[in-house]
Structures are given as C-alpha cells and as structure tokens.
C-alpha cells in the first residue's frame, strides 16, 4: 500500500512536470499562483466541453497532501442567470460578492477530504470559476477563511484579465 502511494506520488510529479512544459495560464502566472499556494507549483492546462479552458496549479507536498488552484473560463451563450445556474457546484450557501467581474458569488467547494473555496463569476459573456483547495489537514495557511480570501484575490485577478 505504502509502495503504491509512492508510485502515485512520483506519477503525479512526472505528470505535473510534463504539464508545466505545456504552456502558460492565460489569466494568472505561476508566481502569483505560487504565492497563493505557499510554495512551488506545477501547472496543468486542460480543455473541456463547452470551450472550457482550465488551468490547474498544484503545490504537491505528498501524494496525499497538496493544495490546488483551479481556474476555469468558458464562453457563455446566455449571460442571464449564468452565475446562478452554476450554484449547484457549491457545497455551501453562495454569498454574493461585490466588485468581482460583472457579478460573482463565493461558496465552498469541498470534495472528499479536500477543503475548497471558490468564486463563480462572470465578465461580460464569459464565466469563470476559481477554486482554491487543500487536502492538508490542520494547515494554518488553508483555513476556511484564508481559502475564501485567496479565492477572492485570484478571482479578482482572473476577472481583471478577462475585462
């Protein structure tokens, strides 16, 4: 079991390293992500259906302990209720945010043992989702409040790049 964990850890490292070489995130540089995740990051660029572009920054401590910053941007066909219709991604009641893009909400994004906070927002006809999460238990730099602040800070950066 322990061996398997180590194999997974090295696989993740290799995967991260190969993704890092793929390019740059259009909305945030590595240094800023690194500042938010308190350490060196690797970047994984993804695309997904609906023309989604995704940047995933990971600060990997061990195979089990890592923090992640995930930025998703996608064009919207209908701007009405765009943010509201994505509230199903929230694992806590969304709270409206002022001065992030055209409109934005903040809410939790917990998955399994990963604690996460996210901002779902819109700039004109583009939706963005910024999620900051950590799997590290008792991490003082990843308290719920700090994760919220980090998600908001990065959401402002992303929205700024989208304006």
């Amino acid at each position, binding site marked *: 079991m322990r061996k398997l964990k180590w194999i997974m850890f090295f696989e993740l490292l290799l995967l991260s390293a190969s993704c890092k070489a793929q390019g*740059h995130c259009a909305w*945030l*540089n*590595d*240094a*800023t992500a*690194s*500042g938010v995740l308190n350490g060196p990051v690797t970047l994984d660029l993804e695309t997904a259906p609906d023309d989604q572009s995704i940047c995933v920054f990971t600060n990997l401590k061990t195979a089990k302990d890592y923090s992640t910053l995930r930025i998703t941007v996608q064009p919207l066909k209908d*701007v009405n209720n765009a943010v509201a219709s994505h509230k199903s991604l929230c694992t806590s009641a969304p709270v409206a945010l*002022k*001065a992030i*893009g*055209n409109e934005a909400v903040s809410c939790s994004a917990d998955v399994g043992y990963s604690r996460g906070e996210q901002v779902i927002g819109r*700039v*004109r*006809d583009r939706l963005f989702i910024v999620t900051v999460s950590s799997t590290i238990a008792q991490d003082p730099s990843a308290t719920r409040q700090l994760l919220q602040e980090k998600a908001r*800070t990065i959401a*402002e*950066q992303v*929205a*700024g*790049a989208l*304006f």
Partner: protein
Amino acid sequence: MRPDSGRWILAVTVVAGFLCIWGGTTSGVLGQEADRKQYAGKVRETYNFRFGKDQPFIPGTMQVEGDDFVQPGAFPDPSYCAHCHQEAYHQWRQALHSNAFRTPFYRASVNILINTKGIEFARHCDSCHNPIAVLAGGLTENSKVDRKMDQNGLSCATCHSIQKLQSIKGNGGFVMGIPSVMVDEKGNRIPGEVPYDEIIKHPERHSQAVMQSFYRTPEFCGACHKANLPNPLNDYKFIRAFTAYDEWQSSKFSRRNPLTFYSGDFTTCQGCHMKRAPNDLLDYGAKNGTFASHRWLAGNTAVPFYYGFDEQLEKTIAFLKSGNFLNVDIVALKKANEEKLIAPLGSVPVSLEPNNLVEALVVVQNKNIGHSLIPEVRDLYEAWVEFTVQDGAGKDIYHSGFLKPDGSLDPRAHSFTNRPVNTEGQFVDNHKVWTIHSVAYDNSVQAGRSVLVRYQFRIPADIKGPIKITARVNYRHFRQSYSDNVFGPDHPAYPVVEIASRTRILNIGNNDSVKPDPGDNPDWMRWNNLGIGYLDQLQYADAIQAFNEVVKLRPDYADGYTNIALTEIQWEKYGSARAGIEKALALSPNSARALYYAALLERRAGHSDAEVADLVEVVRQYPDSRDARRELGISYYQQHKDDEAMQQFNELQRIDPDDLAAHYNLSILYRRAGMHDKAAEQQALFVTKKFDPGAPTYSLDFLREHPEISTESVPWHMHTDEVHDMKDPIAGAQ
C-alpha cells in the same frame, strides 16, 4: 563550567549586541542590495528589453535609484502602514490611487494594449497605475513576478519612496528610491520594514524617511498627471495626452501666469484634492486633530460605485456639487430678427410672446477649478450642458443634452469631451491611445475661462403660463459606450452628477428685472465672462462690446481695458488696442498682464527696446511665466542677442520641457554657438513634438461621417431643433 566563562559569555553577548546595533543598518542595506542584485539578475534573464538594455521601463519615464529592477517585497504592504495610519489606510483603500490598476475601467483598456501590441508597451501606463509591477520587472511575457501588488495600485510605499522628480515631463516622471520607513541616526535610509516600536521611539527619523518637501508641490502630482504618447508607444510621434499640471500652471491658482482673466490665491493640487479634515481613526500623521485627505476627491464616481465604497462615492459627489467650481449663467436672450441682446438676463426687463423664436446664451465659467473641465481622458469621461425649456406644466418645449434610453448622451449635446481619431478616421474607442493620430474635436473650459453655448427654441403658439429655462452642467464616469464595452450592455446605470445649474422662470409678456441669486456673479463679471466666451468663438466685435459693458460698470477695472485690447490684438486692430492698454496701465502701471500686451504692440510698432523692457518687467514679476519667457526669448532673438535669447528659452524649458518654440529656437541658437550636439537634440525634439500637418485629414474623415460633431467643432454654433430651410440660401452663402 569555568568560573570566568559566564563573564566571557556576557562580554561576547554585549559585544555581539553592540555589533548588531552598529552593523544593523549596514548589513540591512548590504543584504538588501545583494537581494536586489540577485533578483534583478534573474529578471534580466527573461525580460523583454524591446526599448533598449539600459531603458527597462520605457515607454514610461520612471527611473529608480540604482537603475535596476527591485524585488516587489522591498515595498512594504499597505497593511504594514495601516497599523499606525488607520485613517490614511481607510481613505486610501477607497481612493483612486489604491485602485489605479485593478479597476475594470483601467484593465479593459490596458488589456487591449497587452493583447494587441504586447505587455511591454503597458509599462507606459503602469508606470503610474502599477509602478511596483513595472519596477519588479513584471511587465514582460511570462513574468515570474507574483502580482499580488495589483490590488494596491499606488501603495503608500510607492508615493512615499519617491526621492526626486525629473523635469516635468509626466508619464511617471519621478525617481523611485528603495523603500524605507526609517533613517538611522546619520540619516541613512534603512531599507524595508522596521518594528513599530522603533518608529514610535524615533518618529522624526520615520518622517525623514517617508516625507519629502516636494510631496507638497504640484510638480509631485505632475509626475503622473501629465502624459504624452511617445514614439516608442505609438510608432508615430509625440502626442500630448493630457496635462493637468500645465493647466494648473496656467491658472490663477499657480500665480505663475500674468495673463489669467481673474486672479486668485496660490493653491496647489493638494490644496483642493488633499484638504485637511478631522480624522475619525487613529493616525499618527494627524496634526492638531486633522489629517490631509488621502481620498484625493475629484470626479471619478464610477470606481467607488463599482466597489461599493459608499463613503468615497458620497464624498466625491459632495465635492463635485460643492458649488465652488463652476458658474452657470443664462446670461442673455435674443429674439429672432431683433439685433438687441437682452442682457444681463434678470437685470434688464424682457418681454416674450407666443411663437417667438428665441436664442438663449448660456455661459459656463470655470471659476475655481485649477485645471480644465475635464482635465484628463476626455475620450472617456463625460461632462456636458443640459439645457431645458419647459412650459408651466413641466412639459419640455426644448431639451438638449438628454440621456437616451440606452444611457448614451444626446449626440448634439454641448459636451466637454474630445474625439481622438486613428488613421482610419475612426473614433479611438476604448482609450486605445496608441492608435491616436489626430483629434477631430476637443472641447473643454480652461481654468478661469468661460464658454458660451447658444440654444435656439420656439415658444409654442398656444403657450399658457410661464416658461422655465434651466441650464446645468452634468458629469459622469464614463461615456456610455465605454461602460458598455467594459461590462457589456447589462450593467447598472452609473451616477450622473449635476455640478452646477441655473434656472430662470419667465412670464409670457413682460418681465421686470429681478434680484440676483446668491450664487450669481455680479453684472460686470457676467459681461466679462460673456466677452471671454465671444473672444474664444472669434466674435471680436461682440467681445469688445461685452468688455465695454464691463468698463462701464467698473471704470476702475484695469483688466477690463486690457481685455478690450487683447481682443483687438487678436483682431489685428493694433492701433485701437493701444488705447485700451494705455488706459489699463494708467489705472495699474505695474500690471504685468497689460505690460505683456503692451510689449506685443511695441513689437508690432518696431519699438524693440520698449518691447524688451516691458517683457523684462513681466518676467521680473512672473519668473515662471512661460508666455513671457517665450516672447522675451523671441525679442532677444530678433535683436540678435543670442545669449540672452538662449537664457530665456532655457528658462522656458525649465518651466515646460515640451515647449515647441524653445526647441525650435534653441536648435538654431545652439547651432550658431557651435553646440552641434545640443542643437541636434533640440531639432529632433522639435521634429517629433511639432504638429503633423498631415494629421487633420484623419479628423476630416471623421467629421464628414459625424455632422453632429462637425457642428460642435466649429467655435460658433447653435443648438436648435428648428429646421432651417436651405432651399433659398442667402446670396453668397455658397
């Protein structure tokens, strides 16, 4: 333990402590320098030096001590300052300076520059909007700089680390020092943060590190509130973008310009935009319970509206509506087919009948703004005159300057905006200033001046009851098209603020004269402002008539006669101009304003020595008068006194490094003196700064497409709904 080991330990501790204190400053500086060197070396590996290896911040003007990149961590975070300066932090957080970079209104424009030309060009803008990012070397492709500073724009440490000002060129015309919040006992700056108790113990050393006497001068503001579009940015030539600083210098508040129409007390930018007020929060920078505002209240309502900074928004609106800045005067009426001007309205009787076609003359006086309305970014900020005539039931008879349902301004409104155009003759939307090649229309009210706006309306034949005429000046950030570009069409309406207004209610039939409102100008000044308005519309006969009314009411007012004379000079009636100047000088023999125009008349008459004598006296009284220095330089030049002429043009460049006459004349004078390098430099500066004679063709393309702006671009024009029958044009009008 040996018995004396305790003593040894004590001694070593004492010596180490002493060395630590003695060497603290030195090692801090050395450590910081080493860190910087290492950091800058790393940045240089991947930095885009498009504009030259030795010019990393071009197209901005900013310089930094040590001429190298600075690690962003060298700048203390504003939260560090907030510990002792809570009031400053609270105000700054809501102010434009702290939001100078992150606001969508800025990002929407600069992103276009980054995405179309490249991020390195944005150093031009960010030198003033985000200087730490520029100094850190963050404005390059794939930068390795953590951009957390973006949310703080111009932080405390930015302004309070500036060590020197460059010549007043703008675009970030300062020299940044390495941030320091303390100096040591010898006055050496200690880089970085220090413990608060050290500052509390030595507040004077803190002040010495973070305050400079020039922070209180207009030149400090001018480092950024003056901007040009240089060749490296636009691949074209130097184009002036804006210069609130020069406008201030030309205003009565600088007391550096003898030619203003009115005089006033010396007031700096800080005098209006950083007024002292009682502080609510703890701030060690407060003096006698008051603190110099770090809100920099001005015209921008959009940023506090977007961020929900209600306090800043409320104070900004109160600032704009304070009633100090503009005077709006419905100064006169004129009925169609009647020559007589009914003026000043309210002080003379007036009779109106149904079906009268009436012309209303509205004067907007920039009474107490130390710069023009609007001083900067007239392509985005919007001020305009709204003029309404209503019947007794409040129904509009005439309305100019309304907002359409989509929020856009009446295209025929009299606005204080501009229309820069590109090489396609298209309006440069989204503030893409690097594409500007010409300006098809540019309208403002310069400091201390007045503009005349004409409206024509017909009183309905079935009118019942009085008519109510209102003229107001409205202001908003931003023009609707820009707000739509930033947010898309589904954004809330942004605030429109009425800065000043005047209403008059007139009966159909006879109206006797009425008592003036408390805010009204005295009648002599109303005539004077009307005269200034006429003068700027090149209506010389009307201007002289208006100024004659001034001297009738104020025969003791020397400037009234000077105004008549300067109008006649512009009209090239030099003979009669002399009478006005002589009268002015008889009333006020030392009037620099009258002497300046006297000098122009002496030049015309060929009295060269008298001309120089007058100008020398003007320069003696106003050593920073750019006009006097320029004319005196020309006078000496014509007298073949090259050294004296050179001295005047050098002084002129000290006042305004972009003055064309100085570049031109110095290029000749230097060449004559054998100073070929300097001559070549001045010649090159003249060539890049001089007006491009080919540029107006782009404006003409725009004006052909936009007749409403074409009309506005003509000095004399009328706003009217009346359709004028052009089938039978007046003979010769073709």
